[in-house]
Each structure stands twice: as structure tokens, then as C-alpha cells.
């Protein structure tokens, strides 16, 4: 399976319990639109903080959304690439990692409280149940490909763990690397 999923997301979680309230995120994301802080055609901010363990606050863009994501009870920055994915899975993953990294670092710089992301761990989810069903055989194949792609980024194969085995949920993996994503990638540069 070498097909690139229709959508691909990478989430970086906070290194410690969140101090940052979702309410603080809305003005930050709105400022990002004004100042074009992160790449992409930024459209709007939507606030779902009233929903427990949900998508939190989303900065909607044409190519990719940036989310202060609370799904699974884990606060973090999620980059969801929706369009214009490269045809190669490694390139697509690299693009998503760069997007998540850029936004996480921008958030660290702007957040009113002292927050820090864990750049050694990331969650990768495949928003495409047709090509990437969350079933054992497909998951094993996807995991092997993902390990190879992440090795190119981190320099060594990370540890991978499938997040859910319930086929209704998106196929997703938690990846823990021996090296920080911030150290593994050059200064974030996103394709538009």
C-alpha cells in the first residue's frame, strides 16, 4: 500500500499537563490570520471548547487545518492536511510534520502561559477509511510504511503503537522517536 491518504494528520502533544486554556487560543489563531504567521490560505477560527475531549479550537485553512486539539484527553497541536498532498507518503508525512512543528513552535512563542511540546512523540492519523481502514492487516501494512517514512525524518525507526483497534476509529499511530522532531527537520518550510 503506497497510496497517500486523502487526508493526513500529525499531532504534537504537550510535554506536561496543559496550562493553556482553550479560550486563550482563539485570539492567537485570529492573530495568525491577521499576521499570516503560519503558511497556507487561512480562512477562519472555530471554537469547540464547549465539547469535552473534542477538536478544541480550529484554525481552518484551505490546504490544512491547525487545531488546538483535545481529542483523547490529550491537549496538543494537530495539523490536518486536507488538500494538495504530495503523491509520495514520505513527502506527505514530512509536510505534515513540518506543518505541526511550525504551528507548535509559533504557539510556544505566543502563548500567555509557559507551554512546551513533546517533540519526541507524535500521533499520525489517516483520515481515509477507504484506503486506510483501521483493520489488522491494513494497519500492519501501514505501520511498516510509516516506520520507514519516519526513519527518513528522525534518522532511526521510531516505536509505533496503533491507537485504536476499533475499526470505526481512524487508523492512527502514536510514534515515539529517540530524537526530537525539532532537531530532525530543518526550519519549518511549508508548501502552500
Amino acid at each position, binding site marked *: 500500500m503506497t497510496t497517500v491518504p486523502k487526508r493526513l494528520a500529525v499531532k504534537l502533544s504537550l510535554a506536561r499537563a496543559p496550562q493553556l486554556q482553550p479560550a486563550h487560543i482563539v485570539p492567537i489563531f*485570529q492573530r495568525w490570520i491577521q499576521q499570516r504567521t503560519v503558511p497556507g490560505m487561512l480562512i477562519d477560527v472555530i471554537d469547540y471548547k464547549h465539547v469535552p475531549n473534542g*477538536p478544541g479550537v480550529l484554525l481552518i485553512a484551505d490546504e490544512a487545518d491547525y487545531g488546538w486539539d483535545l481529542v483523547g484527553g490529550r491537549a496538543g497541536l494537530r495539523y490536518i492536511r486536507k488538500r494538495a498532498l504530495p503523491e509520495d507518503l514520505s513527502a506527505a508525512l514530512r509536510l505534515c510534520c513540518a506543518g505541526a512543528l511550525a504551528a507548535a513552535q509559533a504557539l510556544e512563542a505566543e502563548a500567555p502561559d509557559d507551554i512546551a511540546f513533546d517533540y519526541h512523540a507524535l500521533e499520525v492519523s489517516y483520515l*481515509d477509511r477507504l484506503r486506510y481502514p483501521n483493520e489488522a492487516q491494513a494497519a500492519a501494512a501501514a505501520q511498516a510504511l510509516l516506520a520507514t517514512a519516519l526513519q527518513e525524518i528522525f534518522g532511526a525507526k521510531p516505536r509505533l503503537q496503533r491507537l485504536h483497534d*476499533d475499526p470505526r476509529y481512524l487508523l492512527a499511530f502514536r510514534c515515539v522517536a529517540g530524537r526530537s522532531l525539532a532537531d530532525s527537520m530543518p526550519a519549518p518550510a511549508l508548501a502552500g
Partner: protein
Amino acid sequence: MTSWKERLKDEIPLEMTKLIDTYEAQMSLRRQGKMDEKVFAEARLRKGVYGQRYDNGQRHDGIRAQALAYPSGDIVKGTDTLWDAPGMQRIKIPYGGLSARQLETLSELADEYADGILHITTRQDIQLHYVHIDDTPDLMRRLAAVGITTQEACGNSVRNITACSLAGVCHDEAFDVSPYADAMTQFLLAHDDVQDFGRKFKVAFSGCAGHACGLVHMHDLGLLAQTREAAGELQKGFTVFVGGGLGTVPHQAKILAEFVAPEDLLPLTQAIARVFARLGEKKNRNRARLKFLVAKLGIDEFRGLVEAELESLPQDPRHTAYLDDDADLAYAPAKAGLRLNGAPLPTGFADWYRSNVYRQAQPGYSVVTLHSPLGDFTAQQGFALADIARKYVGDNIRLTVEQNIVLRWVADADLPALCRDLRKIGLGGAHAGTIVDITTCPGTDTCKLGIASSRGLTAELRARLIERINLLPDAVRELKIKVSGCFNSCGQHHVADIGFFGNSRRSGNHKLPHFQVVLGGQWQQNAGSYGLAVGAVPAKAVPEALAALTERYVAERAKDENFQRWVKRLGRKEIKTMLKPFMQLPTFEENADFFSDWGDSRVYTIDDIGVGECAGEVVSLFSMEISKAESTHFEALLALDDGDYRRADERAYRAMLLAARALVRTKFLDVGDDSDRIVNEFRQRFYDTELVYDRFAKGKFARYLFKRHTQAPTRLDEDYAHQIIDETQLFIDNIHSAEQRINGVIVG
């Protein structure tokens, strides 16, 4: 597996497949500029595919208006609606009824194509936001595979048919209206007689007169269940109301018929639809709802027209077939009904039980309301809720017009365990149906018409009220608050004790978001009366204004005086005086916070407001029908490209029939879909009379249809497929020209 279309081809009913394929072909035509943008917009809306705020390519970021340069450039999916701009997908859930499997599919779609959120509307629909139009055909196929359609979820047609979420389990109902709502949904879906309205048409069923139930008084067509005795037998029937509606100017519905037997219900509805299609306003959308026609004619004349229409209505076996189908539409409980048995109760159970549990008419069972703040829940909650439903109630899930979810047929003995399970997924909160359970439309968050942030205000009021809920007197706890982002009433502010709708005012060189306060509307008695607008308050002053109102109500109300009566006694003038301190406008320099809306850090502006699509496009019936022929012709072209010459021939022939039918229906609505009849009517009305004759080619193009209709092809090769596709194109062009000559204009 290459596509959802291929994967689900055996799981989708043929009719649904055709409708979705046609829509997908229309998308292709529109992208190539071969379909008029207004016609496409109406076709899209009738599939529930809406535009969203900022889809005109403009967004004010608080400092300046930014142009949004979408990749597809200037291609539009409607007037000023750019192709790539994220949109909203509305999904019809008839009378709010959902199975566990359907809930799972909706949840899958939310996190794959939208933003991970499912939004419940005040019409028991589900809406997904930030959906790209290119994803909508697959989204529809996945829904169709589990028995859900988006057909006519928007546009100038029959919207989702609603019914009381307690139907079938209520103590006070005459009988369960669910089977009748289901039958009407099936009968009217894509029916020929509901394709030519000037505006949308909303239908609701109610089981009793006294409660809010189906809100029949505020609908175009409201059906109120009744029983009567005749010849010693109890007969079921409906009191039929017409011409109600909210919107800018609310109208209370009028009684059209006191008692209509179930077997007469669908023909009567069809007759009403025909009168509305024939006489309803088509040019001015602001006067095009049925309520204006009923008001203009008067209920007696309208009734006479409907009765005359009934006389000439063709016999149709479907008038009763769906009722027969639904005779066994039973909602069987998943478990035996057992009373609470003394098992340990979770903390706070009593509060939750008081506000969220309704004891069913059936002993040992209850309905549990799941309060979803602002009508939202996540895909993950959807999956978990499907598991909970299977564990306790099976498929007995319904959405409510107050944007909540109910589980019906819960065995009483399961209530403590269910409460615990719901809390684990964040849906076990108490206070459903109380003052904190505020109804809201999307407002400026996503709606093109929004003027103020209804969701922002709702979130703020909810957060403040929930902190004090246990301190509030019962008279305040029980009040209903409903919020709309503009005057269009999607949040149903007219029928709340305390309603708000968004508008704006100026202070110096700046605008401030405001909410008009509407007091004393009646939710009970099926939305029995509408509230009074008393004045506009700056959005940021609304919480304090609300506190002042409720505190004075508690202090001054007479014993057993409810809010409506108190408002009436106090009078609009006195209430306005009370609110006046909250209406004062600061300057920007004095209080800049007032110049931002709730939940929005930008300085307020509505300079980037769009043109709303709620009304749909006013497009002639012919334009809609001929577009189906064009998309079918396009499918023939695709088949030719695939080398599937048999399908190319079948699609081309079908396209000619659809084009002929489109023209016939401008003169004879009841032509039906039988190919012989279409061809005969076309020949007699347009060919023999030479109305379709081209100036030079005369009747040549019409004869392409006659030839193919009488002679199946003897060979099915590429040359033949090319030929019939070319002939079909000429025939469709000929029909367009004829229609323009005969009727003057295409797009009305």
C-alpha cells in the same frame, strides 16, 4: 477498492444511486462552465450542500479585508460562492430517528470530511461544517448505504419532516405520529409536485395540542394528531394547519381541516403542494413562503383551491402504500422494562433524573435526554453513544428540535448505569430542557447571513448560568432561551420565553454587535404564540440584561404567574425602561470590548457578509428538469470514454427522454416517468403542433428521440455511441430553444 462508488454499489438503492450520480455529473458540468451557476446552485442546495460564510472570497480579519484566493480560482458553485470554499452539508434525519449504525456512519463522515463535529439543528437534521464540495458525492453515497439521504435537505422544496421526539412513548399523545411522518417523508421525497416551489416548505407532526411537541403552529404544514368516536369506534386523524412560519415576520398557522383520516393525508398534502407550486410567489423570495399565499388569499379561498385540486388529483397507489408499509413500524424495546431496584445511584443522579429523564407511558421505561451544548457532539462521542445505545436501547435514538439527543425505551433499572456511562463520554450532564439548555443557530460562526455571534453569546450565557443553576428559583430554571444570529429565526427566538436575534448598531465610526430582545414567546401549545421585540442590547451587555430581567421576574411575579403573563402584565414600555441602562453605547475609547463579539477577538465588522442561501435559488421547474437531462448526457459521454457503449446508449436515450419530459411538464405536470407516455405527450403537444420545429431543421431533432424510442440499436460500437450522443446534444439544444420560444425565459 478504488472508490466509495464502486465499494458501495450493491448497498445503495437504485433511485439514490441515480440521484447522486446525476448530482456528480452536474458538478462536472458546472466546473466546465456548461451548467448555469444559478441552476447548479439550486441543484446543489437540493442535495443539502450549502455555502458557508466567507465563501465569497472575502474575510475581514479585524484589521483589513483579506482576499481568499482559492485554488480553483473564479469557478463558482452559485452566485458569489467560490468552488473551493468550505461549505456545510445538511443531512435529513426524518423525525429525528436514528439507528446506532447510522450514528456511526455520520460520525465517520464528520471526522473524515468535516471538522470532527456533528451539529444538531432545530429541524432534527445533522449538519457537518467545513466540507469541500468535491467530497459531497462520496459523503452522500456513504449515507445512502445506511438509509440516509440529503435529498431536498435545502433548497426550495420539502425540508426534513419533524415530529415530537416523544412520539409513541408520551402520556398525552393521541397516538404515535412517527409512522405518518415516515410515510409522508417517503411520499414527498423527490416527488414531482414538490419541485417547483418558490421557497422551502416545512412540515411537522405533533401528537398532542398541549406541549411543544411538533410546533405545528409555526410550520407551513402542521399535522396535529386527534382521535374521535364514530359508530362506536375510535378513529385516528389529524387536524391540518397551514401557513405558519417564523422568519422575519412570524405567522400563526390556520386550520385547513379539522379532521383528516390517515388515508386522506397524503393526497391532501399533494393538493396543498400543487396549489403552492402554482400560485405561490416565485419572483420575490421574501414573499414566497406558503404563509404569504395563505394570508393573501385568506384561509377559506385557499381551502377551496385545495379541495378543487383534490378533485382533479390522479389516483396514486402511493397515497396509501407507505401507510401500509408503516403499519408494522414498531419501536421494540431492546430490554425488558424493569423498575429502579435500589441499586446504588451515582452522585448527582437526582438532579439528572429530574431534568433529563421522562417516564414513558409504558411502565418500566423512560426517555433519557442527552444535553449536547450548542447542539454539538464529536465523532468520538458518536461512536461511544452508538455502543451505549446498543447496550441499553437498540436503535431507539432520536434528535430533538432543541438540539439534543434522546434515548427511548430505557429500562428504568438501567438508569443509574446509563447515567454513569453517559458521563464517561461527556453526555451525562444534567439540566436538559432548563434555562442553560439554550437553542442557537450557527450565526456568524459559519452562516453567510449571520450578523452577531449567536453561538458565542449562547456559550457565554450557558457558562454563567450553569455556575448558578442550583441557586436559581424553579421559575427561572424552567425558562427557555433561544438565540438567532439574525432576524431569520433559525434559532426560533420567537417561541422562547426569552429570545435574542442578532443585529448591529453604530457608535461613532464603529459598529457594535447587538441582540434584539424578544420576550414572552410560547414554546408550549405547539409554539402557541410569538414574543414581542422590546429593544436591542449590545451583545456584551446581554448577560447583565438577562440577569436584571430574571431577577425582576422572580421578585415581582404573582403566585403561579408564568413568564408570558408577567411580560404581558408589565408591558413593552416598562420592560424597555428596565432594559434602557443596558442599551447605552460606549465609545470605542471608553470600552473597546463592546466592539468585539462574544468568542471573537476581532474588532466587529459585517463588511464581509455574504448572500444567504437559506432561501435557495428561484429557478424555474424547466431549468431544474433540463439540467437532469444534461447531466445524464454527460454520463453518456463518460461511458463512451470508458468504452461502455451499451451504457452510453442507455444514458443518451434517457437524457432525451428527460429533456422531452422537461418540456412536457411545463404544460402537463402529471406526465409521469413512463417512456411511452412521455414520447406520446411530447409528440402531440410539441411535435405535431410544430412548436419544437427548428427554423431550418424543422422536426429533425425531435425525430432523433422518436427513432431511438422505437428502435433499439442493432449494433453497439463506438461509432454508434458517438452518433447517439451527438444527436442527444442536438435534441437537448432544440428543447432549450423551444422552451425559450414558448415560455420566454429559462431562469426566473
